[in-house]
């Protein structure tokens, strides 16, 4: 369980507070209007945005003081997920080692993961030579290979077309296994497609998660005015 105990994350005069718990091994969507603080919340969990109040617990340990790479999380960013000057192999191998010429067993693990995400034989390409969908697969492979219990996704497939986005969401979920997945999206259909629960974010506050179907039919608090009329038809 990822537990926010009166947690406040603040950056550049913008703050978001959260007092809630995210169930382990479930998929939770974070949705809300632009500028509400969805990404700030996610980057707070990852350790990029300073935590200015409260505590953040993963299972029984307080992680709010830890550096980003010492937290139990891997992250798929909105953009700049890959180093353009490195090959696919090097990009993915960074999940395991800072060596640019990784050892044979690391290469084998990377190739294996690339096959799982559908990129067999592409390991020597550079990101510039791949399509947008393929680049997303590389980033996904790296996040999976980092093998952290929590996978954070900050609208990682928003640049893809609708069909490709759905395909990537399904692939991510099928490979995520029993990881705890927290995904930011501005599109309620994404939440309906993959999320067990939804955290609504509005006016600098993250609301405790509720089951996706409940959220869509009866959004909590101020979410109603944002989603009240528009979301109900997504459920049909």
């Amino acid at each position, binding site marked *: 369980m990822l537990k926010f105990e009166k947690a406040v994350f603040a950056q550049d005069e913008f703050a978001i507070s959260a007092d809630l718990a995210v169930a382990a091994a479930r998929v939770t969507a974070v949705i809300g209007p632009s500028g509400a603080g969805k990404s700030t919340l996610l980057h707070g969990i990852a350790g990029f945005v300073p935590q200015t109040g409260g505590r953040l617990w993963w299972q029984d340990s307080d992680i709010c003081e830890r550096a980003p790479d010492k937290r139990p999380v891997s992250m798929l960013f909105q953009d*700049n997920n890959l180093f353009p000057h490195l090959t696919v192999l090097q990009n993915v191998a960074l999940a395991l080692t800072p060596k640019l010429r990784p050892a044979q067993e690391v290469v084998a693990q990377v190739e294996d993961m690339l096959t799982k995400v559908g990129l067999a034989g592409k390991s020597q390409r550079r990101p510039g030579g791949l399509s947008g969908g393929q680049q997303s697969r590389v980033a996904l492979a790296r996040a999976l290979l980092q093998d952290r219990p929590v996978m954070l996704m900050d609208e990682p497939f928003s640049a893809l077309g609708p069909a490709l986005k759905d395909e990537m969401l399904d692939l991510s979920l099928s490979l995520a296994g029993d990881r705890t997945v927290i995904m930011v999206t501005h599109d309620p259909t994404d939440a309906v497609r993959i999320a067990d629960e939804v955290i609504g974010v509005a006016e600098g506050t993250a609301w405790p998660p509720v089951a996706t179907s409940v959220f869509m039919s009866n959004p909590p608090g101020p979410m109603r005015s944002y989603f009240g009329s528009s979301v109900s038809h997504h459920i049909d």
Partner: protein
Amino acid sequence: MAQRAFAIIAALTVAGAVIVPVAAVLWRGGGATALSAADWAALRFTVWQAFWSAAISVALAVPVARALARRAFWGRSALISVMGAPFILPVIVAILGLLAVFGGNGAVNLVLGGLGLPKMDVYGAHGVILAHVFFNLPLAVRLILQGWLSIPSERFQLAASLGAPLFLLLEWPMLKRTAPGAFAVIFVICLGSFAVALTLGGGPRATTVELAIYQAFKFDFDLGKAASLAVVQLLLGGVAGLAALALARGEMLGAGLDRVVQRWDGSRLVDGVWITLAAAFLLLPLGAVLLAGLPGLLDLPASIWPAMLRSLIISLAAVVLTIALALPLATRAGEAASLLGISVSGLVLGTGLFLLLQPVVRPQDAALPVTLLVNVLMSLPFVLRILRPGVESAEADFGRLGQSLGLQGWALWRIVYLPRLRRPLGFAAGLTGALAMGDLGVITLFSRPGEGTLPLLMYQLMGAYQMEAAYGAALILVGLSLGLFWMFDKGGRVHAEV
């Protein structure tokens, strides 16, 4: 943490390398005699020539920049590139080129003589200003051209459709914004002029403070006087440098001048004349060096090879040291620290280092290391100006990704920053190498005969009236300077992925 430590060490090194020699100068200068009449004359001349050099450069740059902004023609982008060249051209080479065109037996005087007109004399105050305009007109053109190209083309379309007066509406406000900055930058550059004054100036009516420091040092060996003059130069450069920093806008080394604004006014003929005159003024002296240098290659003395080797070593060492200091300093605070170096002139630093070294070693034995150090300090502000945007964008784009992967310290630099910085690093290294290769400054204070750099050897050949050999040496020097620049710059571009 280690990152921060490097930054602090680098900043302290730079600040110390500037402040300690300056303190030595101040300490010696304090006990020295008051300024003589000749010193005051040097101060007056320094300000006077800097004022006119800057004023003429900017005044001429306005019509040239306007012509370049609104005319598309064959060779336009090549001409704009060439206008970046004087920055890395060895001063002594350009002076030789100017002598070939404007000197006693130069092309201009041949024409004037043929027409029965009096000859012009390139030595003295006029020559100093002429050379300064040669170096700084291209800089002024580029700065002002940036201003012109920053006016959105829609505004020109709107003004044209309204029949509104373009100059008052669009151009005058832009010039009011850019011209004072261009003037200030050139004024400061000319205040610190040494090599030009050394070769074309001199005497009671054309001696700059920098040249006076050199003379006090070299001919009178009056360290007290040199120190007092160095204090004068320090105050002059410091005050003017701060003023220029406040006024100067725009990127001195900026790219992206390839655009032409479509306009519906002005005379093609007049614009053509301005562009032709500017191109001739810049290209003829360079062409003259090339032409006279080729046969001169056969007359080169054997001393050219060791001088060349020393210059190459200094250049390459300056590249390595400058980049090593610049990388940890590529922050806003670091750039501010490095500006210390640009407000202090090379000869002031040289004087200070001489005073410091004198009790310990014979300064002549340290000529090359001192030249190297001064070159590093002089290049650093430019290099940081080039690198900082690259470091900042790499950090903005990939900082969090690197953090999430646990990349720190050297691994972070190796995997993220250095590959992202390849192009600006190549450009910065090229610039440093070329500047150090062509520098004729502090080496003149220290060097023993036969132990100088290539620019110094060239200056000595000119002084001995071995003009053929001087032209040959100039050709080699310009080849090495531009070659170093090209090699590093190209190295940064090859395989630089997106």
